[in-house]
């Protein structure tokens, strides 16, 4: 059924039928399909400071969206709130993944439901070996069987090759003494193995050189394109979006999405900066 839907989706897309304005702020709902992610009126605060002031966003299966904005605009907050960071309080609004209420779930339950967050600052866990961690995480998210078979081993090998990670990487400790680039590649490797429904990539391009960005972009493409999963790329540069072309781009200013558009919006932001949109945020 999902495959069928995806095919229809693809046809519609290829035929150039934009889903603009059918329903929701941007991004469409074709054929009455259930959205992969649906955020409505999301307001959050941390330590009594309001950060998000009513976010609406809908991602359909197979879509890649980008959220762009300056530092402090609420981008990382959006990522953390979706994953369920306990420090953020959701004061209003709803979040649904495949029709399931995410706000009812703790972070590990969201992971098991298919949310993946590639962290801006991945945490080190000294003494926990990468190989062991990957196996346990795949078992936790996708079940014991998924962590045992040949498929796990081949995905792992393929992912490591693609990302240029050496075999010895598996016996290192999770993010302990990793370079910035190694941390980001390791996040993408985890994404490839966990096969999420929705991958959220928080500033995955920062700290990467141009080769690193290309490698990581290919990894995202390989994991999401042609599947019914989706991705939400959070960034303040256009760089990564040149390699992973998003279907939709949203601009976040002061905790609100002030503009949405196609991939051309990213290029426009690159040229004009954010100032011309400031007024819309008031």
């Amino acid at each position, binding site marked *: 059924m999902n495959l069928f839907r995806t095919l229809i989706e693809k046809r519609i897309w290829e035929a150039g039928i934009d889903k603009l304005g059918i329903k929701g702020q941007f991004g469409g709902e074709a054929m009455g399909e259930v959205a992969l992610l649906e955020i409505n009126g999301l307001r959050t605060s941390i330590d009594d400071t309001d950060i998000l002031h009513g976010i609406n966003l809908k991602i359909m299966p197979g879509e890649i969206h980008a959220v762009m904005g300056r530092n402090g605009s609420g981008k990382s907050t959006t990522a953390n709130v979706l994953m369920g960071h*306990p420090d953020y309080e959701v004061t209003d609004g709803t979040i649904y993944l495949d029709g399931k209420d995410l706000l009812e779930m703790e*972070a*590990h339950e969201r992971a098991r439901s298919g*949310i993946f*967050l590639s962290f801006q600052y*991945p945490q080190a866990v*000294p003494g926990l070996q990468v190989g062991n*961690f990957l196996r*346990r995480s795949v078992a936790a998210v996708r079940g014991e069987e998924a962590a045992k078979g040949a498929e796990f081993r081949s995905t792992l090998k393929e992912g490591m090759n693609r990302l240029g990670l050496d075999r010895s990487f598996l016996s290192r*400790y999770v993010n302990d003494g990793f370079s910035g680039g190694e941390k980001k590649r390791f996040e993408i490797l985890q994404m490839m193995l966990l096969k999420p429904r929705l991958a959220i990539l928080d500033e995955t391009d920062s700290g990467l050189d141009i080769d690193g960005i290309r490698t990581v972009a290919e990894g995202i493409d390989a994991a999401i394109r042609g599947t019914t999963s989706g991705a939400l790329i959070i960034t303040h540069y256009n760089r990564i979006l040149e390699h992973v072309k998003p279907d939709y781009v949203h601009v976040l200013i002061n905790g609100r999405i002030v503009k949405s558009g196609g991939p051309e919006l990213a290029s426009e932001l690159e040229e004009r900066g954010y100032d011309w949109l400031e007024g819309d945020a008031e």
Partner: protein
Amino acid sequence: MTDEARSAVGDYKVGWHDPENATIRFDFGLSEQVVRDISALKNEPEWMTEIRVKAFHHFENRPMPTWGNMHLLEEIDFDKVCYYLRSSDATEKNWDDVPEDIRNTFDRLGIPEAEQKWLSGVTAQYESEAVYHSIREDLEEQGVIFLDMDSGLREYEGIVKEYFGSVIPYTDNKFSALNTAVWSGGSFIYVPSGVHVEMPVQAYFRINAKNMGQFERTLIIADEGSSIHYVEGCTAPTYSTDSLHSAVVELIALPGAHIRYSTVQNWSNNVYNLVTKRGVAYDNATIEWVDGNIGSKLTMKYPAVILKGEGAHAEVISVAYSGEGQHQDAGAKIHHLASNTTSKILSKSISKDGGRGSYRGMVTVSPKAENCKVNVVCDALLLDEDSRSDTYPTMEVGNSGARCEHEASVSKVSDDQLFYLMSRGHTEEEALALIVNGFFEPFTRELPMEYAVELNQLMALEMEGSIG
């Protein structure tokens, strides 16, 4: 001595190894007569009786240590301790008397029922006797002597007399005096020159109930160029109604020998675990203590190495886990008496639910010892605000050519670390266990595989219910 015990003394001559025949249990409390009775019951040579008696008087006169957790030490009531319990008593305990939480822990560690019962002191594990004998036969072929300490004294009195108390005299501290006065059980091992015992010698302690005791005494002698890895204890909780455990372990590594002594102990939380462990390393010999302390009410344990010969090397790797109401006061002592000696101390402690972990270490380098190297690292991990960690490092360096390094760190589990792991599908408890086991990993990787696996499982169990 009770009448019952007296009649059992008669039985002894018939057969000490018949565990079902008699029960000998001395009344509570200690006196010179009790010490003499223990020695008589074991039919010991006169010199051992005399050492025991001297040690008893030293114990009586020696004040409590004036350092460490004096508050908890003062709570020990020596009159309420039973100083001699013939091991066959253990078989008379009832499995139903073992607290349910401990029985559950056995189950969840995946330890088979028979072994559970043995470990909790309910029964001797006859099924494993065959295993024990085959290990012993292999060792015997190599000329290795491997006996319980009582048998060692009977069969190899000369060697025992030469080395017993040579590393840890009864005058060393109050608890070594107590142990010398009333010791029972423990292991006696002699590895002949040039013999390498390939397998870690470990099954012994897991299957031989005789060795489990409150006051065990262990003596290991590795002759020139030999090597042995000895493993003591078990990760499963050692349920004990006895509240005082005070062992003495002496290691002698003759020139070029290598002794590694690994311990994982998990006492029930009513137990005082006050142990003296020390080894002497001669020229180019190595002694390694791998020491894991979980549970107990108060543990005071500082495995020590005297580097007596040139080029000798010492390592002490220890971990301590203190939970609610527990204080692990552990560390290491190294004395560099000879030139070109090297030592390495790695101490890791985790405190949780108000538990307290203390690292207490002492390293000395004598003025005559040239070109020595010392490396000390101690790390503490606190799991909540109520827990406590202290570090008491002492270094006395008498030779300016010594190279000494000391690093200490205290860290806390951060919310961001937990969130990161939870975002990969792990519950908060699982995430905490991954962090804790990672922290212990430098220790765990030194253990034989089955102990490492059990220790990881145990820490995962300890983390359960810890998230409020």
